[in-house]
């Protein structure tokens, strides 16, 4: 039993740290994500956080904010920023964006990058669908950039010509199959221009561009004179509403202004990651040494259990478990792991001291372990539950959607949420490792002849 549990923990530790990769020719496929796949917060690896608000006195509608959000997303993809986080706060009209700054980029110029994200969107309908470059976006779909040829020259409509875009569902009368489309409404001026263009280009392509990126290239099926047209294609509901939001963004009645802006240079981020890693290793070594010297065999078991707990914490943020999505780990998040490991050390100390006490009170080895486990359980339980309460409050208050959303809207800062999350995971890990696994291992190893000496458990030498 001892060896099984110890082996399982070591296996978990190893895989959680290094992951499992399968080499298939030149491609290495990640089967299980390791600590190397952890997504670090911008406070660790450098990056930018910005909050955008509409520059109007009127309250923006949900649709308008969604449009603004989709345009920011589009521009991030265009700039090869794939690993971003974006939140929309509908109550307070805020859009919060966070993205890392890539290390290979020489110039660190976050001001320009953010300015570009919030610039007024330029929506154009152009003749044809010719583009210069193709790139692969974050969702694996190709991104077509920079119009060329006639497409570059001939602009049919601009953002101001579009009054609204909506996604709609229609049902085929004969097959009964439902499909999604985007319905556009054009202004009087736009309708005229569009009527002329659709007449001329019937059967050909009119492409829709946002800034420098082609967002759609529908074919003209009919001449449209009333300023009402639909874009069909094999859209899913999401695709249709995303396209509608993008088109609307080009017709937004307000400018976005940057109200909050923070940036951290990646070189600074790098050194903090190194530092935290170093600090973690030294701290773990010191604690292990302490436990081994003071508690001997239970100390060794405690070190194994602690390893498991740390591994579990990393696994929970790296996306090791399929049911837990990967989580951005920030400095406060690391602090949460450190604190929960502290709680794990405490759980082991309480149990080991209790066993020691029983031994010195003259009990047998098995009796001492039994009593020590029982006596210490409720103290550990109560202590950990209170920490869970604190962690849950942090997550509820600072989470993306939270109990205080009513008053404050969704979170403006993710760092404290991250602390709560890792703390919660750590304490759950503590119940699993520091309590359950430790006890299993202690009981089991005490059954072996070589481990029957009371001295090994802190008792008097025999």
């Amino acid at each position, binding site marked *: 039993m001892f060896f099984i549990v110890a082996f399982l923990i070591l296996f978990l530790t190893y895989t959680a740290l290094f992951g499992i990769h399968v080499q298939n020719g030149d491609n290495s496929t990640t089967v299980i994500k390791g600590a190397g796949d952890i997504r670090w917060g911008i*406070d660790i690896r450098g990056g930018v956080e910005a909050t955008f608000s509409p520059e109007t006195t009127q309250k923006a509608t949900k649709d308008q904010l969604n449009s603004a959000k989709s345009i920011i997303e589009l521009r991030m993809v265009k700039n090869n920023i794939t690993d971003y986080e974006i939140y929309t706060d509908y109550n307070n009209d805020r859009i919060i964006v966070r993205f890392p700054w890539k290390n290979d980029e020489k110039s660190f*110029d*976050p*001001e*320009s990058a*953010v*300015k570009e994200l919030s610039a007024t969107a330029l929506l154009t309908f152009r003749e044809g669908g010719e583009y210069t470059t193709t790139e692969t976006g974050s969702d694996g779909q190709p991104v077509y950039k920079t119009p060329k040829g006639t497409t570059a020259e001939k602009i049919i409509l601009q953002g101001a010509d579009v009054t609204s875009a909506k996604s709609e569902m229609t049902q085929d009368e004969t097959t009964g199959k439902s499909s999604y489309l985007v319905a556009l409404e054009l202004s009087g001026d736009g309708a005229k221009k569009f009527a002329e263009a659709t007449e001329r280009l019937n059967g050909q392509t009119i492409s829709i561009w946002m800034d420098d990126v082609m967002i759609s290239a529908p074919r003209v099926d009919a001449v449209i004179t009333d300023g009402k047209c639909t874009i069909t294609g094999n859209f899913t509901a999401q695709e249709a509403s995303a396209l509608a939001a993008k088109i609307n963004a080009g017709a937004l009645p307000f400018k976005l202004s*940057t*109200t*909050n*802006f*923070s*940036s*951290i*240079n990646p*070189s*600074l981020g*790098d*050194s*903090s990651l*190194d*530092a*935290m890693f*170093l*600090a973690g290793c*030294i*701290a773990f070594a*010191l*604690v292990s040494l*302490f436990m081994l010297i003071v508690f001997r065999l239970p100390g060794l078991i405690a070190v194994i259990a602690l390893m498991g707990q740390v591994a579990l914490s990393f696994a929970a943020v790296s996306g090791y478990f399929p049911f837990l999505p990967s989580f951005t780990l920030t*400095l*406060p998040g690391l*602090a949460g792991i*450190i*604190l929960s490991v*502290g709680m794990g*050390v*405490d759980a082991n*100390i309480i149990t080991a*001291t209790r066993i020691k006490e029983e031994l*010195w009170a003259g009990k047998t080895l098995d009796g001492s372990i039994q009593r020590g486990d029982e006596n210490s359980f*409720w*103290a550990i339980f*109560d*202590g950990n*539950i*209170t*920490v869970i*309460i*604190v*962690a849950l*409050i942090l997550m509820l*208050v*600072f989470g993306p959607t939270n109990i*205080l959303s009513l008053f*404050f809207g969704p979170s*403006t800062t993710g*760092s*404290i949420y991250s*602390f709560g999350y890792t703390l919660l995971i750590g304490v759950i890990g503590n119940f699993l490792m520091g309590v359950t696994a430790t006890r299993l291992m202690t009981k089991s190893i005490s059954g072996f002849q070589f481990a029957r000496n009371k001295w090994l458990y802190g008792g008097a030498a025999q």
Partner: protein
Amino acid sequence: MKKFHIGFFEHRKIYFAISIGIMLVGLIFNFIYGTQLDIKFTGGAVLRYSYTGTIDQEDVQRIVQQTTDKPVTVTVSKDVKKTGNSAKNNVSLSFAGTESLSLEKQQAVAADLAKEYPNAHFTVVESNSINPVMGRDFLLKCVISIVIAFLLLIIYIALRFKKIGGASAGAMAIIALLHDVLMVYFTFIIFRMPLNDNFIAVVLTILGYSLNDTIIIYDRIRENRRLMGPRTEYSVLVDTSINQTFTRSVYTASCTFLSIATVFVVGAVFGLDTVKTFALPMMVGIVTGCYSSVCIAGPLYVMWQNHKAKQRLENVPAKKSKK
């Protein structure tokens, strides 16, 4: 095995005096320096650049003030340790007022500085520009979360420790917690660190940690109440319990302290301010968290129970009290 026989209840006045003394010192510092709130709470702007060579502080101040129309404080720190071998200097510009600084202005500052010192290679290390409304919201949220945490913790202790006078036990635990929060607060004041989100994270961590300490002692009291019988005096009961858990308290506190101290030392070596301002108050919090559970919460609980017992005696008819 070593056993402790420390009269925690007997010496309570010394402990109370120590705590009150430290708080008074903190209060004096607070009067002299005032409470600084970080721009994360108040709003405002701080830019930090790295550069090579030498710059003139007053010159920089003049240029930046001209560009932004805002009073600015310039702090230069030389030879900041960075990754790689090149030692670089840092200059940080903190702008007065609580308004955020627009991106255009930030770019203008960088451009004007580069013009004046073409060889200094100014690079943004860190920049923060926070809108005052959002800062205030964030502060409010932090305060509310701490208040909710306190309330839920009292309720939990009251439920779990019914047998030893749940509500009073909860209240005493909370006094010990307030003690720790104050200590962490004074650490920020004495070391003149502005209160920021680190402060909130430390306070919440210490709440959980110190309460854990207190609970482990209460758990022992609960157990000993059963073992020693209801006739045992509160002072004996509590002192025995604290002494029995003392080994564990010291071990755990030293282990945690050791870990956080490591983080602090490494953070200091690498020159990471965020890590340092997190670890230092945390170290203080761990010590006071352990101290308050052992030396404050226990004795206070005894005093409260004795006080209640005395009241009960006084309410008994005069016949008995004459004796």
